Structure formats: C-alpha cells, structure tokens
C-alpha cells in the first residue's frame, strides 16, 4: 500500500513539520511494515506554470516534425509576453492548456532548464510530459490540462508534484491497512490524535426501489449494497487531484468511472464495481457457478468457471467473478464521439456495487484463475462489511460531483445476519504474555483505541470493530495492547531452562565425521538435492535400480532436475566438475546430507491424512503422517580428483586414488566407532575392478573406489576420479563399539618380518586374517610393508611382506617364543590361502 502524506493528512491533523521519515518510524513501532518513504519532487524547482498555446508553427525541415509554439504563461515570465518554445510532441492543439517549465527551473533528475538554441530557434523553456515531471512513466505525450486553469497558475501546486509517499508492506492480518482509512487510524493512534473517519458520512437508509439484487448464496455474500447514478457525462474526465492521488498510490488512472471506484477503494478499503446499467439484463444475482460455465473477464480472457466460484450474474448469465474481476460485457463503455453530429456517446447510467464476500471464497477464486487483483487482495484479507454503504455513497457523491450525474433515491442493501463475535479475555492476560505490568486501565484504553468495545472488570468481554476480522483470539488482543505500548519497551529476561544433555550421539557423530574428513584434506560442500534423469544415465544406473526410483517435484526450479537425489554422488561430482572447471584441479570434497528413497516404502507414500487442528493427533494419525514420507537417510559421500600430494622439491606427485576413497570410509567408520570390513565388489558407477563394498558385519553400508572410466567420460570428469558413499543410518545401526582401556605392556617388543608368496587373486585382507589367527595372542600388531610381483616368484603370483610385532603382557619373550608364533602364523596362512614363505 502506497500512502501519499498529502492524502493522509486529510484524515489526521499531523504536526506541520512531521516528515515521512518521522511517520515511518512511528508506524513501524506500531507494527506497520513501512518499507520506505518516496520523496516526490524533492529536487523540483519552479517556475513551472500553466500555459495556453497561442500559435503553432510546424517546422518540417528536420528528421522528425518539430513545433515552434507561442505560449501564454500569464505574468510568470515577468513580461506577460508569450513564451517561444520548441516542442517535439504533437498531442496538443492551439488553445490547449499545457504545463510549461521556464528557464531557471529544475526538473526532477535534476535537470536544470535554460533558454537554448535548438532546431534553429531559441526555446525559452519546455512544454512538459508526465514523465518529465516525475508523475509516472505511462504517458509519452505532453500533459494537456482541463481548460479551467488560468495561464500562469503554479503547476507544482496544481499537480501536487511535491509530496512524500509511504510504502507499506501490509501483512496478511492487517487487511484494513490496505486503505487510507486504516493507515490513518494507525497514524492517529500513534500520534494520539483524533481521526476523521471517511466512512462516517451521511447515508440514506435502504429502501425497496434501488437497483434489483438477488443474493442466492448468503454464506458467500453477506452484504450487497447497490446504488445508481443517471445523467453521467460520458466525456467527463477524472479531475487532476484524483488522478494524482491514484498515481501516487501506485495505480493507473484509466477512466472516470474506474478511477472513482479505485479512489474509493484506496480511501476506504472497500472494492467497488461499476456497471453500465443499460448493459445489465434484469436483476443482479449473486450465486455459485455451475461447473463449466464460461465468462469473458475484463482482461479479455475467456474463463471456465468452477462450481466453487462465486458469481455476479444477470438474466443473461455471469457478468463477473465476485470480488475478483468483472466481466467484459457490462463494462463501462468508453466515450466515443459521433463524427457527424459531434455528440459524445458512452455510459450515462451507472450502477455501483459495494458488497462483502467471504474471504476464503475470494482467495480460492483468485488463485484458481490466477487473478490477484487489487479487489481480491483486499477481500482475501478481510474488508469492513459495515463500510459498504459509505463506500457506495462516496462513489455516488463523486459521480455527481465530477461527472455531472444525478443520484437516484433507490438504495439496495441486502444484509445477511452476521453473529457478533466477542472475545473473553482476562484483564491481566496482556501483562502475562508480555512479562510486563500494564494494568487493566491501559489494556482497556488500548483496545478501545483500535475500535473495540470493552466491558467487564477482571474478565473483559471485547467486541472487535467490524474492520478487524483478524481479532479472533485473546492473544490477538494482547498483541494490540503490547504493540501500542511499544515492543521496544519490553524488558529482557531469561527463562529457567531445565538442565540439558547436550547433543545426541548422532549429532556428535556428524560433527566428528566432518572434522575427521576435513582434517584428512577434504572440503565440505552442501549441494542442492535436485537431480534429473541425465545424471543417472551418465552414472550408468540402470532401470530397476532403486536409485532410479526418485521423489519427484511437481514444480521444480528446473525441468532438467525435477527429482530429489537418491545418492549424494550427482551433487558431489557436479561440485567437483565446477571446481576443476574453475582451475582447482586437485580437489577432494565431502558432503553430509540426506537422500530420498522410495524403495521399501508402502502404498501410504505421499498420502498424508488431513488432520484437524483443534486437538492433538492420535499416535495412529502421527504414524500415518510419517508413513506418507519417503525414507530420508543421512549419508556421507566424498569424491577425489587430481593430486593428493603435489609434485614439489620433496619429490614426485601422488594422485588421489581408489585407496584414498576407501580410507575415507574407514575414517568415517573410525569416527563412528564401528569396525568396517572391506570386500571386493562390483557396483555402478564404480570401476568393476576397483570397487570396494563396505560392510558392518554382514550389512552392506556403502561403496568406495575409482569411478568407471565410462562414467568419468560421460560426466566430463578428470581421469581416475574416485568416490565414496556411506549410509550413516546403516553404519550406526548397531551402535558404536565402546573403547576398552588398553593394558600397556612395558616388556620389550620382538619384531619378525615375513614375506609370503600367494596367488594374485588372493586378497590381502584374507592373508592378514590368516596371519592374525595363526599368530595368536602374542601378536601385538601386523603391518603390510611391501607388495612385490616379479619373475623370481613366478607369473600370476605376488609376495606380501609383513612386519609382525610380538609382545607379552607379563614377560620378555624369548627368541624361540617369537619365532614359534611367527611360524604358526605362516602355517595358518599356508592353510587358508596357500601362502608359501618367499625363499
């Protein structure tokens, strides 16, 4: 809502020196979101005056036609002589009144005006357009004024060019502030000044001879006022003051009848509709649509109506969607001049509608037809049903005043019974909500200021005013009191929070994982969860794979990516690609986040019950809500490309490899206190020979390794890009292993090395397991320090060299004891994996 101060002052006698900024501050404190104050004409300086065009000489020797005019500007130029002005516009004739800026003036820009040579003439000023005066961007031509103004009259004042405009973002609860009346009321309260309520005007009582109206749906329309005006001059134009106010309020002047309805709507908040009486067929009827009915609305669009749409109809059918938009058929006709007689034809008899519609009905129709009109915006947020008669009267008065019409005596006013809604509230509730003592007297006074009637002592029975449909609950009334007493005056206290237990194990674990991976040289990213088919194709994930079963968004940001991720890899690889593309070629990234899986979810998926809100849902209902959701497990993923250890003065570069990806998984498992088993596996999108399956016990919890070269190519990734992904929920399902305090032996260690030759296909993990089993309790640790392949051991074989450390808890081991343990380890390896000692 844009509120010109000059207009606002009509209803509240604000102190003369009060600026827009001052008022903004006061209104913000009272809870109106005044987003800004626009200064109109701040750098404007006269002389800017009314002029009358006396003569026009057409200059034709230039690229475009130019006019050299003599303009009477009265005494404004000090001489009384006509002013010579060159003008490029053509929408005026000799005798017209125009706006002239004289040398010495400054137009908004700032744009100083001086006499100057142009098109071979001296131009002593300019004839102005609306745009040049900062009145709006709508009109290209110059302003032609109504004839009644005298040459020389100050146009700055006439056109109200200097003003301030408050720009207010009206929240959903304060529909009444979508009007000057509402903002003026808040201003009056903020300044503790009286309000001149524009709705308090004389209105004749309803009678039986007003325009005929039938309201068939009284739940949708509980008030319908209709008035009529005859003898309207179709050629009449909106007066400048009205046009200017409409412009400053952010709307466009269109035609007199439309301008008047808009003006009254801006003033009182009541949307009005004006009909050409000759184009209404029979009585105006308010009813619901029948499904499939059609209506061509004012914007020229033919709309198919829904059975829920509330309609304004006549005997011919729908003539408007109630409170949203009128139909084209009963529109006020534009004035037309008969070329033979010179007679002006157009609408001469107007019916004014001022009705009150149910907010929900209007909101749904506006959404359904995508028609967020100014009227719908107000009805949706609640309009004062008691202002209908005054608004209609105001429109009638304006038609009489500026269009020469005559008001007819008939007043139609159809009123459906509306229950009076009162709220019982403990007089000290605002104190208890605020944590500050206001006292009963203040509470009552503040509620009365906003228009409530208040009775009672300890318990107050409060009846909100008709323009505040948002006041329904005791807490709504508390807010009124507290905001008017000033949020800024609230004390600052701290509640006694019961002692807490800190983060949960799962929350601590995610932090540990983040720290561990970052410490290992990886950088955390948070990717969007949106994916499309293309990336799943590129990853080689086949139809039927659960990662193809995605949760799909009905209104995605991009139709290329309409699904939610089933794996973290697309986002991670996208980020990797972006980094490489920007020149960071050595890069390791990780992400902790949820994926969305519909595998293993039931038929209840996506079908959450619509539960009431006047009670707690039952446990069963809560279970139904949860059953409608896809699985959303936490995962951790990592990707690697380029070098882990770059080339330097210390030696050659080392690339990130499949082993780093597996190691990242081990890092995560260590952080989780879980023992991870690594097995050879084959899983898309990994390289079939370089893919590790990651297990906790017998449960597969993720994969790691090098990506398939085809995937690397398809996604345009660096060669040998590696990746890891783990399901944290699965990883931690069995809980963490509690660390046992180790018993430290201080006896000396006995070290024995052993090199075992095995078949190439034998896995290191199996050799190690055999050695551990065979070595027994004396084995303190075991480490693989070399892998060798070569002619000396034969083709298809490899030698694994291990360092074994033996130690006893209670004695120094003899050489014989250590050797025996070693031999036993070797024997077990021979049995299990066919290992032979390398000779």
């Amino acid at each position: 809502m844009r509120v010109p101060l000059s207009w606002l002052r009509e209803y509240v006698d604000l102190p003369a020196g009060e600026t827009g900024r001052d008022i903004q501050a006061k209104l913000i404190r009272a809870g109106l979101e005044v987003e800004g104050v626009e200064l109109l004409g701040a750098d404007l300086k006269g002389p800017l005056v009314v002029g009358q065009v006396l003569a026009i000489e057409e200059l034709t020797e230039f690229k475009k036609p130019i006019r050299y005019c003599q303009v009477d500007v009265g005494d404004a130029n000090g001489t009384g002589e006509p002013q010579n002005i060159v003008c490029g516009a053509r929408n005026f004739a000799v005798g017209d009144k125009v706006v002239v800026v004289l040398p010495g003036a400054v137009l908004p820009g700032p744009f100083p005006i001086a006499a100057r040579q142009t098109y071979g003439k001296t131009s002593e000023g300019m004839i102005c357009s609306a745009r040049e005066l900062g009145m709006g961007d709508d009109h290209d031509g110059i302003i032609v004024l109504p004839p009644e103004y005298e040459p020389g009259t100050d146009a700055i004042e006439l056109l109200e060019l200097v003003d301030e405009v408050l720009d207010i973002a009206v929240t959903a609860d304060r529909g009444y502030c979508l009007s000057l009346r509402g903002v003026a009321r808040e201003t009056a309260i903020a300044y503790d000044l009286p309000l001149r309520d524009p709705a308090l005007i004389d209105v004749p009582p309803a009678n039986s001879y007003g325009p005929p109206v039938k309201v068939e749906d009284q739940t949708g329309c509980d008030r319908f006022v209709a008035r009529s005006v005859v003898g309207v001059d179709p050629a009449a134009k909106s007066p400048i003051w009205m046009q200017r106010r409409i412009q400053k309020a952010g709307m466009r002047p269109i035609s007199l009848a439309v301008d008047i309805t808009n003006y009254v709507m801006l003033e009182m908040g009541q949307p009005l509709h004006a009909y050409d009486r000759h184009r209404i067929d029979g009585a105006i009827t308010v009813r619901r649509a029948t499904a499939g009915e059609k209506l061509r609305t004012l914007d020229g669009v033919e709309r198919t109506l829904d059975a829920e749409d509330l309609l304004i109809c006549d005997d011919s059918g729908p003539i408007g969607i109630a409170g949203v938009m009128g139909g084209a058929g009963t529109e006020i006709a534009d004035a037309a001049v008969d070329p033979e007689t010179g007679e002006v034809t157009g609408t001469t008899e107007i019916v004014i509608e001022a009705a009150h519609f149910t907010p929900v009905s209007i909101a749904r129709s506006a959404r359904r037809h995508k028609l967020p009109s100014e009227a719908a915006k107000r009805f949706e947020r609640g309009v004062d049903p008691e202002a209908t008669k005054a608004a209609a009267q105001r429109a009638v008065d304006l038609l009489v005043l500026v269009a020469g019409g005559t008001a007819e005596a008939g007043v139609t006013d159809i009123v459906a019974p509306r229950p009076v809604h009162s709220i019982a509230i403990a007089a000290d509730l605002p104190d208890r909500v605020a944590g500050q003592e206001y006292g009963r007297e203040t509470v009552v006074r503040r509620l009365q200021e906003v228009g409530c009637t208040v009775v009672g002592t300890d318990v107050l029975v409060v009846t909100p005013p008709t323009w505040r449909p948002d006041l329904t609950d005791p807490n709504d009334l508390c807010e009124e009191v507290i905001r008017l007493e000033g949020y800024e005056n609230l004390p600052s206290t701290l509640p006694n929070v019961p002692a807490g237990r800190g983060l949960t194990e799962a929350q601590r674990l995610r932090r540990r994982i983040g720290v561990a991976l970052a410490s290992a040289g990886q950088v955390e990213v948070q990717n969007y969860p949106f994916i499309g088919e293309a990336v799943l194709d590129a990853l080689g994930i086949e139809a039927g794979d659960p990662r193809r079963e995605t949760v799909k968004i009905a209104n995605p940001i991009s139709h290329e990516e309409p699904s939610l991720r089933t794996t973290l890899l697309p986002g991670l690889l996208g980020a990797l690609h972006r980094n490489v593309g920007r020149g960071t070629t050595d890069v390791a990234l990780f992400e902790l986040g949820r994926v969305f899986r519909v595998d293993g979810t039931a038929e209840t998926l996506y079908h959450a019950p619509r539960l009431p809100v006047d009670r707690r849902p039952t446990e069963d209902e809560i279970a139904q809500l949860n059953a409608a959701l896809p699985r959303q497990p936490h995962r951790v993923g990592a990707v690697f490309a380029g070098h882990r250890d770059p080339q330097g003065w210390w030696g050659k570069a080392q690339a990130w490899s499949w082993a780093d990806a597996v190691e990242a998984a081990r890092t995560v498992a260590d952080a989780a206190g879980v023992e991870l088993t690594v097995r050879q596996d084959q899983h898309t999108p990994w390289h079939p020979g370089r893919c590790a399956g990651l297990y906790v016990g017998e449960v597969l919890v993720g994969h790691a390794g090098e990506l398939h070269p085809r995937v690397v190519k398809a996604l345009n990734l660096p060669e040998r890009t590696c990746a890891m992904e783990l399901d944290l929920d699965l990883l931690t399902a069995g809980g963490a292993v509690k660390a046992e305090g180790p018993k430290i032996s201080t006896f000396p260690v006995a070290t024995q090395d052993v090199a075992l030759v095995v078949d190439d296909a034998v896995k290191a993990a199996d050799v190690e397991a055999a050695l551990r089993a065979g070595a027994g309790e004396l084995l303190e640790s075991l480490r693989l320090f070399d892998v060798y392949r070569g002619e000396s051991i034969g083709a298809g074989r490899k030698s694994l060299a291990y360092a074994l450390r033996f130690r006893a808890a209670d004695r120094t081991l003899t050489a014989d004891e250590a050797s025996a343990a070693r031999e036993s380890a070797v024997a077990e390896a021979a049995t299990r994996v066919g290992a032979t000692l390398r000779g």
Partner: protein
Amino acid sequence: MSAPNKSYDPVEVEALKPEEIERLRDEAIAAFAAATDLDALHEAKVAHTGDRSPLALANREIGALPPAAKADAGKRVGAARGAVNKALAGRKVELEAERDARVLVEEAVDVTLPYDRAPRGGRHPLTTFAERLMDVFTAMGYSVAEGPEVEAEWLNFDALNMGPDHPARSTQDTFFLKDADSVVLRTHTSGVQIRSLLAAAEPPVYVICPGRVFRSDELDATHTPVFNQVELLAVDEGLTMADLKGTLDHMVQSLFGEGISTRLRPNYFPFTEPSAEMDMVCFVCRGESVGNPDRPCRTCSSEGWIELGGCGMVNPRVLVACGIDPNKYSGFAFGFGIERMLMFRHNVEDMRDIVEGDVRFTLPFGMEI
C-alpha cells in the same frame, strides 16, 4: 716386549737422555698443533704416541735400566708422555669442534621452502555456523531437534495455524511433490517444532531446530531455493515476550559480542501471536553510521540495525493442535536463515558463493567459525 736387562747402563742409552726426551715431547706437541684436521691429527698421534713412536720406544727401554736409574728415567718419560697426551686431547677437542661447526653449516637448509604437500580440508561455514548456534543454546539447556526434509503438510502448515486457505500459505513458494497429497518439501523447520511438541508427553520443551528448507526461488545473489534455517521453540509455564527478548539478546551477544542488543517490531506470522520481526544493533558500526554520511556502514546500509528474522509467542492454536493446554502453558519461538546471517557476519557478497561448493570459498573458514 723385551725383558729387563740388568747390565744396562743408562749413560749409554742415548734415547733416555733428558734433553732427548724433551725434544721428542716438543716434537709431538708441535706436530699435534700443526695438524689441521682430525685425519692429520690421527697420523700425528700414530707417529708420536703409537707403539713404534720414539717415546713409546723410550718407555720400553726404561725396563732395561738398573734399578737406581729406573725411577728417574720413568719419571721423566712419564711426564713427557703425559704432556703429549694432554696436547693430543686438547687438539682433538679443538678440531672436533671445528669439524662440528663446519658440518652444521654445511647441513643448513632453506627453512622458508614451502611445504604444501598435505591436502587442505575444511568444513562448510553453514555447517559450522549452525554448530556454533547450537552450542550457544545447548549451553543454555536446549536440545537440538531434527526432522525430515520432505514433510507432511499438516506438520509444515496446518498445525502451525496455516490452514489450506490461509493467505500466508500461498506466499511460501512451496515445492510440491508430484502425485502426492499433502506432502511437500518443508518450507521451514517449524514442522520439527511440532514434532518436538508431539513427542513430549508434557512441557517443558526447549529445542533448537536447524536444518535445510526449500522455497521455489531462483538462485541469485541474495536468494537460493535451498537454504538453512535455525528455529527455536520454548514451551513452559509462564513464558513471556520478555523471555523471548532476553533469549534473543543472549544469542546475539554470544555470536556478535557484548553489548549488542535486539529490537522487536510488530509483524504477523500465523504461528505466533503476538508476532515480531527481530533486529539487532549493527555489530560493525553499532548504529553510529545512522545520519552520518562520512562514516557509511556497508553491513547495515547505515540503518544501524540488521534484520534477523521472525519471532513471537507461540500461537495458542498451535499448542492446541499439539494437545498442550494453552491456559497452562505458553511459549516463544523464533527463526532465521543461516545464509543471511553468514553473509553479514562474514561479509559474503554473493549467495552463489555459498551454495556452489567452490573450495576457494570454504577453505578460509577452517574447522570452526
């Protein structure tokens, strides 16, 4: 070794003449002094103190002297050998010190060589910023609650006093799911608040809910369709707006320093009543840029205040939907976006930098923020 010769005449033994012993002694000392390195010293040592050196031979001959002369010659030769050994040891220490000093010089390295071998990692500032907030509130006794990102509409809207026709519901830019009734991508973490209330048999409930939320905005310098929120909920007996204000004050002081205060401005949210917009004093200029064109403040655009987010007293209707008696309990709640807070706390100018995963953005924030 030769046996003592009882008939030996000391006068006859040239080598044991006193002047000869002194000469041998002086020659040895001079040779040691002349040795310029440890190898030369070793050669001199062999020549002058070895088994075949004149002094060693002299010493051997003492045994052949008659007993009367033995003591005298032994004393002289012993003194000479003592002096020689002392000179040798002294010179050895000198030369070793010289050698050590030389080796240390030769072993010197350029310690300014770069050693950027280990890959550098870092955590995302959105993560660490949320953690910092969580730490502030867990220290106060709150617990951290989390919930699903795809959420039932009843939990995301209805229970929060946003019925199907509520005007605020249509302004949330909600992502809807295909072929779904009443399941959406959550537009805020408030559903977690509802879940916390439903999970508690009875208040008190003090939770902070961080998490990702979704609004169908296009990504630009100040908007992102996926962002992080932190919401707080406290429900207990006798909670007031003053408690809300105090909690906010505590939070901004924990994050932005002593003396930073907050301001509440009336606003409207369906789930709180009364509702407020919360601002904090600009932590950069502390309000001194207001009306002071010479010292403009980029952080607050010289407004003196920074908008944090929305807050208010939990609407009693929300409590009712969770089965909590609004006559016995009251509550307060607030919420704000982490991205925005990160942007002004750390001078981040473009939202895209936060979401695109460029390591150059993340690395400077390190492990904690």
